[in-house]
């Protein structure tokens, strides 16, 4: 393509001990949706941060529309027409949409004009959004729209999107794709970062693949298979989980019309939630973030006690038992938030082993901790789950997100649970490690454990689950065997449809 919007040449950025980007060069054409692919730690974020002016390259140059481009801060980038939608939203829950957008602008117009502009842009691009809604009440998909509209108001030449679909329902993804295609048709280029190979194949014109900081190839996604792209990312072929043929056994864990009030102002109450999961079975629970996933995990782990009669394990009412008693029975869990919930950030991996494994691994006797045994167990987790760390004495916060995730999931799996509840087990984990974690979950089920896998990654749920149910506003749909599902049905189960009408209703 000869009309190039942004040309990257030899970009290099080293941090102490690691070269994040090593001589990366590629071009983003005008009106092109360009995918940036790579495992965690491949250097995608660093590259994008350089383009957005958050980080300055050590070497190399960038050329934007024929002119040298070296932003030293994000506002430089914005003035040059580069905008970015981050994976983690920076919005204030207590403010409304227009106020949030105004906060991101250097010279915001009066709120009334801004609200009108927001409405215009949201209608023009098919992104339904009411500027007067309080952000705290919005779904993740709607919050993303706030961020996107905030960018679009600057009329960017290049829009960078970091993993935009990780929090969306299939219908919301569809809306987003239409918006992106419309932007493309108007001449905006998009740099699209994602793990999801199928969606890159449907959406993107070109793809650049990074591995260990180097550009290992460019391809046209439509012309290659997802598997080929994945192998370029990982550098070797990786195994898809084996399908196991075991029959589901007895019901191990059961919820009977579980009701639990919301834990805080922006939490979700659980409403008449019923489920059962059998020995040898994986129950996948999908749903858009913030629909009760955290709350369900807390109720099942015992962190929050449920009303008597709501939660049963092997025919025993465990609703009023705390986490320690439930672990003793074999009901284990791994929460989504790794730092601060599943693990204490400033404590070592050995100390974090004691956090959940004290009882089942007999790391404590007579009240005293057997640190040698704890260290041994931590080392076992590290070895079995390929956790990349100098050793078990390292603080949890020093590990990368993916490695810590392997550690906290591995810590539960190696305790030989009867029931394991996991929330977002592979969030932020690279493809090879994610495959390993999924395989470990399936193996565990193969040994007769019952597994509840809560996730926002539908591909993952389809891969590991026997039955699928969806959470929507704290209610759980009926569980359906995965074989009977298609993407349309899943979307309806996730109940995403309701928040698409908002803009029309309010406007």
């Amino acid at each position: 393509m000869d009309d190039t919007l942004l040309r990257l040449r030899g970009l290099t950025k080293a941090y102490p001990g690691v070269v994040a980007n090593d001589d990366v060069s590629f071009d983003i054409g005008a009106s092109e949706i360009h995918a940036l692919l790579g495992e965690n730690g491949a250097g995608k974020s660093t590259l994008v941060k350089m383009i957005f002016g958050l980080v300055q390259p050590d070497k190399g140059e960038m050329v934007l529309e024929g002119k040298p481009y070296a932003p030293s801060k994000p506002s430089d980038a914005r003035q040059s027409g580069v905008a970015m939608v981050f994976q983690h939203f920076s919005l204030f829950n207590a403010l409304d949409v227009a106020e949030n957008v105004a906060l991101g602008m250097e010279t915001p117009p009066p709120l009334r004009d801004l609200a009108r502009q927001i409405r215009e842009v949201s209608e023009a691009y098919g992104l339904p959004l009411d500027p007067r809604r309080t952000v705290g009440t919005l779904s993740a998909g709607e919050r993303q729209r706030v961020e996107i509209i905030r960018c679009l108001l600057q009329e960017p030449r290049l829009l960078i999107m970091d993993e935009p679909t990780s929090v969306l329902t299939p219908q919301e993804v569809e809306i987003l794709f239409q918006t992106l295609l419309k932007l493309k048709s108007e001449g905006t280029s998009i740099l699209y970062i994602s793990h999801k190979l199928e969606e890159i194949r449907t959406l993107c014109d070109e793809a650049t693949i990074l591995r260990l900081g180097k550009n290992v190839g460019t391809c046209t996604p439509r012309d290659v298979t997802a598997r080929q792209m994945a192998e370029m990312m990982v550098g070797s072929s990786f195994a898809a989980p084996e399908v196991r043929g075991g029959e589901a056994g007895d019901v191990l864990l059961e919820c009977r019309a579980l009701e639990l009030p919301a834990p805080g102002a922006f939490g979700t109450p659980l409403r008449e939630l019923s489920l059962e999961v059998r020995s040898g079975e994986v129950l996948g629970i999908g749903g858009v973030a913030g629909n009760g996933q955290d709350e369900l995990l807390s109720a099942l782990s015992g962190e929050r006690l449920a009303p008597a009669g709501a939660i049963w394990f092997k025919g025993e009412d465990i609703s009023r038992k705390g986490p320690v008693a439930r672990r003793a029975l074999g009901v284990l869990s791994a929460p989504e938030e790794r730092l601060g919930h599943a693990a204490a950030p400033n404590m070592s991996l050995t100390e974090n082993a004691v956090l959940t494994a004290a009882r089942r691994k007999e790391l404590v006797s007579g009240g005293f901790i057997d640190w040698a045994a704890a260290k041994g167990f931590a080392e076992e987790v590290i070895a079995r789950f390929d956790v990349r760390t100098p050793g078990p004495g390292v603080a949890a916060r020093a590990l990368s997100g993916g490695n810590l995730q392997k550690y906290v999931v591995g810590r539960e799996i190696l305790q030989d649970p009867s029931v394991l509840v996991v929330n977002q087990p592979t969030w932020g984990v690279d493809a090879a490690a994610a495959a390993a974690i999924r395989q470990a979950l399936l193996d565990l089920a193969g040994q007769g454990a019952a597994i509840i896998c809560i996730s926002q990654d539908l591909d993952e749920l389809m891969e590991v689950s026997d039955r699928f149910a969806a959470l929507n506003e704290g209610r759980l749909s009926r569980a359906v065997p995965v074989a009977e599902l298609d993407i349309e049905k899943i979307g309806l189960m996730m109940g995403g449809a309701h928040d698409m009408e908002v803009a029309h209703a309010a406007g």
Partner: protein
Amino acid sequence: MIRLERRPEPSRLWTGVTPVLAVLLTMIVGGIMFAALGKPPLEAIRTIFWDPLFHPQFAGYSRPQLLVKAGPLILIAIGLSIGFRAGIWNIGAEGQYIMGAVCGAAVGLAFYPADSALLFPLMVVAGALGGWAWAMIPAVLRTKFGTNEILVSLMLVYVAENILASASSGWLRNPEGQGFPGSRNFKQWPAVFNDELVAGTGMHWGVVAAFIAVIAAYVLMARHIQGYNVRLTGEAPRAARFAGVSPVRIVFLCLGISGALAGAAGLFEVTGPAGQVSIDFGSGYGFTAIIVAFLGRLNPFGILLAGLLMALTYIGGELAQLMLGLPGASIQLFQGMLLFFLLATDVFTNYRLRFARRETA
């Protein structure tokens, strides 16, 4: 431009270096302050840190005072440090110390003039219970009504001071004391007098208790599951709940331990060095112990050293008042500076300085 950059892990080096650095900075700025007061700075510093131990004339008196002062500081600070590790801020140790002294003394005086070897241990238990009960007030209020234990425990200090005033001038007053305020003098009641165990060292039962507390606290925090739960609660409250630690229990445990130790320290003080329950027996140990706990990095052995150092500034400060005419308030300022510099330099444990190559703002 200088920036602070978060370290991936807290620096072990800086954890050890900051207390030393804080002491040095306190000496320097303290010296400047003394100079501004028109006193010779080097001599003042020497009088505070060196003379109490090595002055040919005064050391004989002041050296035993080191343990006398350090004992209660260490005992109280050990209790506080356990709570501080869990993020439970008992600021009212002074009140618990006073209530321990009053309760323990009251129990003892009820048996006056009994001559039983069991009486002193009974008084120690009563003292610890008094401090414990006083600390249970903020514990109950926090767990039942969500009040802030910092404010409640602090305000209870003033209540305790008034109870002390009424006790020493009223219901515990020495009936044979010609109407002077203050209880009977325990120094004249051998059965309960908490005397020096080895003459000339200042070592009394309270100091022994402090040393035992140091070791017990070390074992608790490093090896016992309850100590682990306390640390976990302080590090990551949500992870602690996930682990199955009851936050309510931790509040009661931490406030209970710190209250009981402060109460016991109060009892050892009134039956020993102070000799009687009087309005001013306290010397502010309960507040100074907060500095000791932080100066010792909330580590039991660190607290041992910090307690000795702080005791030194007490004795040295008195000496400096006597010899150089330094105002008493300047000594308190000096001690306050120590905490100030410790907290300030503490930043480097978790952050490092970066000198940015390029101006980016």
